[in-house]
């Protein structure tokens, strides 16, 4: 392995120098698409440019990316998850922390989701905070009730990508382009999509952390 290292090092240095040179040859000042985004902000339905790009101008990317997240979970479940970690009894510190933090995290997630329309925040930030709450719960040994692990859980997992696909079909049915919202309703529709996405992202992240597919013990 050591011989390998000395062979690779000069190549990597050359790569870094080349990439650095390319960066430095970029123009000092450029607007990119900033002007164009600013021009269309009024009809985008939100006032935070990043949210406007994510859910409106390039909403199609976001649709596909929600599918990628669901796909990762499908892949993990298909591998049978990784049930290596033992369930350690949570200490009193972790227990209290979870009790205090989980409600706060859920509130923070809701706030981030709401504020995303006009300030930094949005579905992904909110979803990750929700996911963190889920991880805390899993760490203290909380599990879904067996009755909920079959289709209720699956329904929440597909809610995000599903909402996007339904929205895509809806926009086509009202004779618009794919994911082209009517400007008057854009804000409300985006909030709807983001709410579904937040739920799905949060639950998917927690499920990815758990690894193995929760078994539906109720049916056995």
């Amino acid at each position: 392995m050591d011989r390998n290292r000395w062979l690779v090092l000069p190549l990597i240095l050359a790569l870094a120098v080349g990439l650095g040179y390319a960066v430095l040859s970029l123009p000092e000042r450029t607007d990119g698409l900033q002007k164009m985004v600013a021009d269309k902000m009024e009809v985008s339905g939100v006032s935070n440019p990043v949210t406007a790009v994510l859910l409106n101008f390039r909403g199609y990317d976001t649709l596909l990316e929600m599918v990628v997240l669901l796909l990762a979970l499908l892949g993990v479940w298909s591998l049978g998850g990784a049930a290596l970690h033992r369930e350690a009894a949570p200490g009193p510190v972790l227990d209290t922390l979870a009790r205090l933090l989980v409600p706060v995290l859920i509130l923070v997630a809701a706030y981030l989701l709401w504020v995303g329309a006009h300030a930094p925040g949005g579905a992904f930030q909110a979803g990750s905070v929700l996911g963190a709450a889920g991880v805390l719960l899993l760490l203290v040994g909380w599990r879904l009730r067996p009755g909920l692990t079959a289709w209720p859980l699956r329904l929440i997992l597909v809610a995000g990508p599903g909402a996007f696909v339904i929205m895509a079909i809806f926009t086509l049915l009202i004779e618009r382009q794919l994911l082209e919202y009517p400007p008057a309703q854009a804000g409300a529709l985006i909030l709807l999509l983001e709410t579904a996405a937040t739920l799905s992202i949060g639950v998917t992240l927690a499920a990815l952390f758990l690894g193995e597919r929760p078994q539906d013990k109720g049916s056995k």
Partner: protein
Amino acid sequence: MSAAFLYALVGMGLFSLGVYALIVHAHLLRKILAINVMGSGIFLVLVALARRTGEAQPDAVPHAMVITGIVVAISATALALTLMLKLAAETGCAELPDEKRE
């Protein structure tokens, strides 16, 4: 040279560092971390150079690309970690099986 370029250079450095670590380390966890370092480098390049508008408002499009990229990176990392654990459980070692027999 403005701060934007400095951060972008750091991003390129992180990317190169990630490629190096990916090649030289045998342990899969290090390889997966290396991939994540590469990704972070790219995100830094994307976000840093978006500041070149010369106004208070940076270009929002690369920011949105980074959020998309992060979600993809999380998904890929989750799948990679599970594969690694499965492979380790199967072979007793979290490294790629040797190719010398080929």
